[in-house]
């Protein structure tokens, strides 16, 4: 497969890994932002191939993991009210306070698993006597398609469609992590697909304020080791700058058309991050002009703030303070079949990556 097989090449990857071993003299903590990168690192066995001095810290970039508990409860309540709820697949097994969307479906809820929110608009058109809600979660990556679904519904005059939005942004989360007094991160691998939408320039202020290298990185094995190499090279040379390893996808200016669509529907506002808490200006909220497509405004959904399971350390994991196998519940009471927190079930969750793929389990 073009653009995939070249980046899964044994010789090319080994060459970069050899270089990493050659240039590493100090201990470095590097955080990969995106959960897709975490899975790439663990699934390909890259963590064990890095020098011992290089420690990868897994970041908060798992959209499913950071979606607040009460929003999952709200989606479940909508299902129970008879609304057709449409969702991306990996959201449905995440535990709410009482049950998951999948369990609510088993009890009779009309839950549809979709690849594109545009399909949800079609479902709304086909079911004019029903309300249809798309559970619009994700980082900047999924925001354009979710925004587009609202524009699509407006254009087609579909009034029984709305979105339950929980869009969060990467740069404020990085800033919150760097401001944490326990933070030990020396460099970041930036989230390649987020930058494909937003471009690279919003990371320049972070690089300069915190004097920290950020290397925007892709997801294939060769991408990941190249990103790590570039970060270590900067660190070893005492430099800090923004670099773009993923230039085959990420342009400096991003995807202008996608950004325009986002800005038409959303504005920046305060968002709650599951496991982390409220971060000011860290997400998208629906603009006043499009409020009628906002499911939270449209439906009378009760807000019950339920505490997280006290044994789950998802918050510390998402902030990079602990690794999944440092959790006492990991693989014991907490498993994908019985998750205490979202990182164990999401396809981008760090706990799921360790549980499914990690060599650590062998020892």
């Amino acid at each position: 497969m073009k653009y995939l097989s070249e980046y899964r090449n044994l010789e090319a990857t080994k060459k970069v890994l050899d270089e990493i071993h050659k240039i590493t003299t100090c201990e470095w903590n590097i955080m990969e932002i995106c959960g897709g990168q975490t899975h790439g690192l663990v699934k390909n066995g890259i963590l064990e191939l890095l020098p011992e001095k290089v420690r990868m810290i897994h970041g908060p970039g798992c959209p499913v993991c950071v979606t607040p508990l009460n929003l999952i409860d709200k989606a479940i309540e909508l299902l129970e009210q008879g609304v057709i709820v449409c969702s991306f697949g990996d959201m449905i097994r995440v535990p709410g306070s009482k049950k998951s969307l999948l369990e609510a479906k088993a009890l009779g809820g009309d839950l549809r698993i979709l690849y594109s929110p545009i399909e949800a608009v079609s479902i709304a058109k086909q079911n004019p006597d029903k309300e249809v809600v798309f559970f619009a979660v994700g980082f900047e990556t999924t925001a354009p398609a979710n925004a587009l679904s609202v524009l699509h519904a407006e254009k087609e005059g579909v009034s029984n469609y709305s979105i339950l939005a929980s869009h969060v942004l990467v740069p404020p989360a990085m800033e919150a992590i760097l401001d944490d007094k326990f933070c030990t991160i020396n460099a970041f691998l930036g989230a390649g697909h987020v930058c494909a939408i937003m471009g690279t320039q919003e990371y320049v202020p972070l690089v300069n304020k915190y004097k920290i290298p950020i290397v925007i990185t892709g997801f294939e094995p060769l991408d990941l080791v190249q990103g790590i190499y570039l970060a270590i090279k900067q660190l070893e040379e005492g430099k800090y700058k923004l670099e773009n390893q993923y230039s085959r996808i990420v342009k400096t200016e991003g995807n202008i058309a996608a950004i325009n669509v986002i800005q038409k529907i959303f504005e920046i506002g305060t968002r709650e991050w599951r496991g982390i808490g409220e971060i000011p200006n860290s997400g998208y909220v629906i603009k006043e002009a499009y409020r009628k497509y906002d499911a939270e405004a449209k439906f009378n959904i009760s807000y019950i703030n339920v505490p997280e399971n006290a044994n789950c350390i998802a918050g510390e994991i998402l902030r990079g303070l602990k690794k999944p196998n440092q959790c006492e519940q990991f693989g014991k009471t907490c498993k994908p079949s019985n998750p205490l927190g979202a990182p164990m079930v999401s396809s981008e969750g760090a706990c799921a990556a360790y549980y499914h793929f990690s060599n650590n389990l062998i020892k």
Partner: protein
Amino acid sequence: MDIENIGFETINLGHGSGGELTRNLLDKIIFKTFSNPFLDQKHDGSIVKIEGEIAISTDSFVITPIFFKGGNIGSLAVHGTVNDVAMCGAIPKYLSLAFIVEEGLKVSEFIKIVQSVKKAADESGVLIITGDTKVVERGKGDKIFINTTGFGAVHAKATISVNNIKEGDKILVNGFIAQHGMAIMSEREGLEFESTIESDSTNLNFLVTDLLDAFGDKIKLFRDPTRGGLGTVLHEIANDINKGIFIKEIYIPLEKQVAAACEMLGLDPMYVANEGVFLVIVDPSIEQEVLALMRNHKKGKNAALIGEFTNEHPNKVVMQSLIGGKRIVSPLVGEQLPRIC
């Protein structure tokens, strides 16, 4: 079969009542299609003779959509059970065939399914010797469900058992994985994407017989990784016998288009269902001969040696990735779900 002669266009509750309409359905479609000395008795059951040890396997088929590229629920219901009997080291001979039909199913669709059952049974060398047809109210089924039970004679040279597996035994697979699951996925409502991926659904019994004829007790185990895929089945075997399995990703046969579809949907081919794939665990002394025999058979053209058993990491399947790293292969939990991004 000419539908006009059948006299009805859709199946209704009356066709399952046991009365005249049922008889009509059976005579005009079932008995006409499957006519053989056992079934022609039109008795409540059949009396058959099978020499020696008998292998029996049953399976229910509830697939959606019922028609897909490379087959339909009818052919699948034959292949699935024929293969399960074959995996026991047996030669499948007879099948039972039970339909649960949701009222409203078009007779033309039912006939198409029945004809596929017939074709698949003929190709597999098995006879349909008994059966049942029930009709349920609309909304209480999903068009059609099929149950088949297969009966076969255990091959004289077969000593199939997980307990025969030793350290160093080799694991071979007969061809490309993940084709069936991706063919179904490409046609499932809401996920349709254009592809020419066909289900690999096929009967494996003749290749199994050839392997047993040639290698007898040097073959330790056959196993077909249907639901849960290759990854889940390997994990099950490792756990059953408290041994480790080491495989290499680069050796796993994966067709390009299937690989691309898995990438696009964010699915791991190791957990995607197969219906024409089987694993053969063999003594290391015959691995090359087994591979050669399989590659010369039309059901094993893309056969590959994918790994071996080890005492190093009991109960764990470890896979060397394309870039030389290692990871464990854990069993599938629930259904694989499409990802967010």
